[in-house]
């Protein structure tokens, strides 16, 4: 198998909170919440932890040959500053070479798939040996205490992956963007829209995001299968962004997928935004569930709206 467990790692904050506790504290219906989201635990960064500090901890778990890294791609919507880009800070903190390319990708749930495509494109030029791809977010810092739909779903996490030319035997990607949904998952009072005295605050219209997902993801999967002359039966696993139980259950229903082809881990760690897919990949590789020759489809979707799917052959 091409991907080694030493090449992909993740780091969750130490602060693990049960949804039961959050629901009790806010007088929310725990049974109904968990029956819908499927999420029982989330991880929260503390005041001193940032997406950057989690990213560094995740990278420290990798077997990183620093001299072989020619590029650093950092996917985040929790940047350390508006400028400079956090990837430059990371280059220095990780003591990577100075003659590398490093940049941030401001994407959420589809970010890993997009960044993987960028990394693979770089590698195909033969000017890069290895790319370090890091995803890290601390959405929970944007969530107000009375925001039920976000507080019961999102978790903080960083993931990191070393990608080389040999990592995958074959890759194929497709993408979609629909900015008409940009207001449906948004951090208000941020960036150029920051208003003095108001904290940045996340807002999610879960109903609209659910409809977007149900009406687009199945078509996307069909499209990528068709593009590669494949059928559902050719795919070992479908690794979807771990949005929540209701989202995943609907996708499985619409696409008539067998549940054992869809790996889910939202129950124990929540929705970690751009890290959900690398975290699943880590778990599958660690548990030796992916073998040489296996084909998997990864699909990230959400904030933007943005959607990206990739076929990966090991």
């Amino acid at each position: 198998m091409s991907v080694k467990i030493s090449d992909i790692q993740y780091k969750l904050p130490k602060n693990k909170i049960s949804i039961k506790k959050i629901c009790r504290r806010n007088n929310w219906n725990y049974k109904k919440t968990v029956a819908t989201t499927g999420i029982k635990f989330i991880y929260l960064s503390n005041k001193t932890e940032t997406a950057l500090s989690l990213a560094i901890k995740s990278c420290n778990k990798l077997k990183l040959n620093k001299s072989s890294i020619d590029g650093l791609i950092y996917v985040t919507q929790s940047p350390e500053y508006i400028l400079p880009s956090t990837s430059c800070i990371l280059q220095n903190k990780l003591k990577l070479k100075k003659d590398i390319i490093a940049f941030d990708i401001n994407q959420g749930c589809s970010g890993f798939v997009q960044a993987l495509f960028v990394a693979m494109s770089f590698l195909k030029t033969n000017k890069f040996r290895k790319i370090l791809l890091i995803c890290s977010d601390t959405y929970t810092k944007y969530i107000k205490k009375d925001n039920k739909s976000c507080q019961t779903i999102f978790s903080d996490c960083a993931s990191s992956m070393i990608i080389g030319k040999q990592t995958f035997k074959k890759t194929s990607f497709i993408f979609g963007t629909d900015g008409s949904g940009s207001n449906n998952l948004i951090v208000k009072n941020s960036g150029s829209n920051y208003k003095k005295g108001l904290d940045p605050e996340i807002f999610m219209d879960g109903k609209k995001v659910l409809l977007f997902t149900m009406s687009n993801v199945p078509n996307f999967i069909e499209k990528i299968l068709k593009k590669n002359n494949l059928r559902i039966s050719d795919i070992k696993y479908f690794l979807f962004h771990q949005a929540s139980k209701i989202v995943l259950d609907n996708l499985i229903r619409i696409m008539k997928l067998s549940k054992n082809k869809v790996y889910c881990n939202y129950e124990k760690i929540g929705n970690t935004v751009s890290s959900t897919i690398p975290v699943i990949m880590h778990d599958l590789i660690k548990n030796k569930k992916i073998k040489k020759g296996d084909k998997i489809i990864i699909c990230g979707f959400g904030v933007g709206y943005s959607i990206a799917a990739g076929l990966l052959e090991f």
Partner: protein
Amino acid sequence: MNEKELFQLIKTALKTKTKVDIKSNASNLDEWDSIGHLLLLSKLDQKLKGKTSKISELASANSVKKLLRILKRNKLLK
């Protein structure tokens, strides 16, 4: 699907013991909160075999009257 079936679908989706009729809405049904609406959208799409997920205005249809109007307009209700 007809009106009666829609009322029953809403009742099942929201898991409410309260009778659902033309006057029901998110204000007079405790179970019709944001999570309840997600369950409702999910059940509706299941019942109508994937024909409702493209109707984005269903996301803000917070009353039976609004649901009826949208579904009729899209020829999904008899």
